[in-house]
């Protein structure tokens, strides 16, 4: 019998049963599958089937009998059926709109899980769900064909806590290297997905851009055994910053910028995590910077709406960058 069919039959049998179904009865009900072959082989087969059902969220348990009932497997019906979550239209709209936007973007980890989740929460909704008017577009790079597939594999590996082996090359290290990584999580920033995990090669936490992964393999042995646990104090937010000057490459410095014009009004939105100080006519922001050049190049592009106020070394470096652009374009200082 086809495995999918057998598993469905098993669910049908257990959903109907009003008392525990014993192993002997299961063997009798599925003579070709559990009833023939060595005890060890059939039991292993049933254990695999049971594990598959548990992964699907089917509450299958083994109960020890007592005076009133016999030993056997029981499916807890009250825990099987999806209850109505009772979302308000607004709650439903936000889940549905965000979920659909994530799916439509073409690259979201756990795509299949997300599809099923949306279907399930939509199960009780009457009538057609409105087409969400929210979209997400990714794509800061050209070569992204393998990204959806790699995200899906990384999601599966992160769920199952299995290590992955990746072939990785970056602009800084163009020579492809093969590494074993414990995938702790995935982060989306500025349209680019990153993997954060423990790199066995470097023996530490590392961040990898998913589009730079050339090949990916999940550890296939013992699929139901965890290879690693994510440390309790791991916070994925701390590893992939929202802005390029927060990359944690240099010792932190506090940089003060003065903002003018429309940018002053948008200080908070433009410089997340900055301290914003209104000083009469103009606005200043104080940023914690761990990659100074990235901030200074950004400020240079915003000129004259943004200026570097302090510290002096940052101002000097800013002048050097402006000078470099000017010199390359034939201007005399």
């Amino acid at each position: 019998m086809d495995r999918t069919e057998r598993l469905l039959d098993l669910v049908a049998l257990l959903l109907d049963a009003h008392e525990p179904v014993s192993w002997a009865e299961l063997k009798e009900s599925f003579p070709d599958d559990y009833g023939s072959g060595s005890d060890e082989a059939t039991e292993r087969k049933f254990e695999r089937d049971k594990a598959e059902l548990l992964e699907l969220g089917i509450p299958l348990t083994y109960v020890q009998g007592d005076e009133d009932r016999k030993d056997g497997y029981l499916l807890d019906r009250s825990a099987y059926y999806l209850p109505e979550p009772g979302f308000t239209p607004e709650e439903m709209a936000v889940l549905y709109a965000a979920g659909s936007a994530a799916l439509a973007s073409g690259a979201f980890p756990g795509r299949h899980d997300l599809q099923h989740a949306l279907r399930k929460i939509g199960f009780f909704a009457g009538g057609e769900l409105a087409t969400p008017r929210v979209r997400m577009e990714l794509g800061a790079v050209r070569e992204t064909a393998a990204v959806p597939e790699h995200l899906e594999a990384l999601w599966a590996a992160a769920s199952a806590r299995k290590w992955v082996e990746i072939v990785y090359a970056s602009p800084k290290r163009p020579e492809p290297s093969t590494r074993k990584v414990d995938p702790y999580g995935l982060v989306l920033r500025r349209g680019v997905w990153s993997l954060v995990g423990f790199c066995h090669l470097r023996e530490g936490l590392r961040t990898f851009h998913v589009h730079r992964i050339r090949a990916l393999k999940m550890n296939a042995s013992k699929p139901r055994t965890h290879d690693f646990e994510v440390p309790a104090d791991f916070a994925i937010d701390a590893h992939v910053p929202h802005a390029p000057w927060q990359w944690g490459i240099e010792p932190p410095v506090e940089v003060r910028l003065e903002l003018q014009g429309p940018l002053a009004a948008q200080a908070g939105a433009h410089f997340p995590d900055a301290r914003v100080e209104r000083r009469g006519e103009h606005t200043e922001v104080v940023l914690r910077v761990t990659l100074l050049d990235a901030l200074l190049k950004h400020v240079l592009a915003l000129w004259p709406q943004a200026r570097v106020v302090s510290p002096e070394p940052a101002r000097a470096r800013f002048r050097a960058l402006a000078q470099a652009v000017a010199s390359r374009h034939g201007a005399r200082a």
Partner: protein
Amino acid sequence: MSDVHERLRRLLFVVPYVARHRGVTVDALAKQLGVSREELLRDLELLTMVGRPPFQPDDFIDLHVENDRVWVDLDQRFSKPPRLTGPEAAALASAAELLRPAAQSALASALAKLEKVLPAQAKRLYRELGSAVNARSLASEELGTLTRAVEERRELEFDYAGRGSTAAERRHVEPVEVFNHRGQWYLYGWDLGRGSERLFRLDRMTAIRRMDRTFSPRSMPPARVPDPAERGEVRVRFTAASAPYLRERFGGEARELADGGVEVKVSGEERWLVQWILSFGGEAEVLEPAWAREAVSRAAMRALDGTR
């Protein structure tokens, strides 16, 4: 995810779904399940063989396809789909983070309700996995004003400072769509003052006000964020140090140079071009046309002079 897992999950959903939507067409059901018509028909055929041992006629799921419509006799066993699994709930929650700025409280209460309907085992996995994906977007809470205005088809007014402009202007817009492009939130709509469709960046909008007046949607081309890096007439060369990043962005359109650098051709929209070149801090050089070289040079000198 194994094929068996995926298929089983789909099939456990099909029966309750059809029981609730009797006579659904094969095509509509295939669309709902995200599979091809052929795949669905194979699924349905398998389902007709599913039942409980000892497989007497009454023990089978009574499902049939007639005139391209799918029917199932009420099957109490499969009246509802199974609960959400941990990974399903976690995937939904991490996608929902995308709209957190727009719907703080609705999102928080939705996630609380979601967690409540999870079985204990799934709840544990949901909590562990919930922190594994972070797709949170940064935006002001005004995003919610925009999404509501789009839904309710109500006009919007806001101050807008376009790229490089020095003062904000009041705009009056029929909002059509809100979308996130490479982490940046945009509003697309019909600008009543200018009489044309326009694209606005949320972080350049201030004093947003949702009006009482509603509108009926016009026919407009789909929103598209212009990509100035698309082929244009301005030739720019990059040093070897920055070349790998340009290769990632431009793919085969980045021409290799003998010194390890690359050359690309980009749009001549002046404000964008100058800002873009400046953002490379000396790693980029405009080769031609001359006006573009001069514009970059002037901008760099002004920044230099202003930071003495």
